[in-house]
């Protein structure tokens, strides 16, 4: 038998619903296993107590009846409202916000002037005060020193334009 012995059998279903073979198995096992005997005894007592508890009829208080009726009426009101309206009530704010945001974004992207639509190459050329010729012949020497990046930009951008 596994480490859990008969514990799984006595816990998986009510004791009263165990089959004959399962009860036999449990009874034979508890004869030789003290820990399982204690567990079985506890399970039997618990089962007796739960049966005693449920056998005792409980008269619900008028307060309970009122609460049930209130919950029932509330449920009926919910049922009467169409499903789409219930969905809209819960998610309407979110949907509205999303729609407004999307519309605003669309308006910004279509209506703004296209002044800043220069390509990166044009931007580089505009930013550089040097021509390829002046760079190759090093005519500006002595005025201000060009950076390495400015030199490369000037030469290669002009090459690309020629192609």
């Amino acid at each position, binding site marked *: 038998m596994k480490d859990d012995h008969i514990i799984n059998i006595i816990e998986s279903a009510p004791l009263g619903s165990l089959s004959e073979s399962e009860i036999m198995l449990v009874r034979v096992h508890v004869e030789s296993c003290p820990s399982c005997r204690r567990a079985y005894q*506890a399970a039997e007592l618990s089962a007796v107590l*739960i049966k005693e508890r*449920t056998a*005792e009829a409980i008269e619900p208080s008028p307060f309970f009846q009122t609460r049930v009726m209130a919950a029932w009426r509330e449920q009926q009101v919910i049922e009467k409202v169409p499903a789409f309206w219930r969905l809209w009530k819960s998610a309407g704010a979110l949907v509205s916000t999303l729609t407004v945001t999307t519309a605003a974004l669309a308006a910004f992207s279509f209506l703004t002037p296209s002044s800043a639509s220069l390509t990166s190459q044009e931007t580089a050329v505009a930013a550089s005060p040097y021509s390829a010729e002046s760079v190759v012949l090093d005519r500006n020497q002595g005025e201000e020193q060009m950076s390495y990046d400015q030199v490369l930009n000037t030469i290669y951008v002009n090459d690309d334009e020629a192609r």
Partner: protein
Amino acid sequence: MEGWFTRIATNTCLNLIRSAKRRPELTVSDLSEAENNWLEEKLADAAGDLHRSVEHNLIAVDLADRLLEILSPEDRLALTLIDGEDASVKEVAEMTGWSESKVKVRAFRARKRVREAMEKLLATMGRRADLQLATANESKGD
């Protein structure tokens, strides 16, 4: 219609139980003398005496309430319906709106917790009885 109303009543019950406070654990010191005696009698009479007085029943009900208080409202509901009222897993699932596997898990967990709590109680009672016996023997020897 009947199932729908049952579910509403079940949920109202659950809400009421949830709003009530519960004890995290049950110890022997929580038990009254009558509850202690009930357990001892039951232990002595393993075959189960069917002849019981009304008072005896009331003690059992009170003890059962204390034992069930250690469970969550949902676990308690699953256990009392399945083990106490002999409802099937499917019926409980319909009553509560839970899936059948959820009902099974809740009942299994509740059964385990109740059994463990009871085992603990019995062990404590057993130790106490042993101690009393040893004290009695010592006083006899003196």
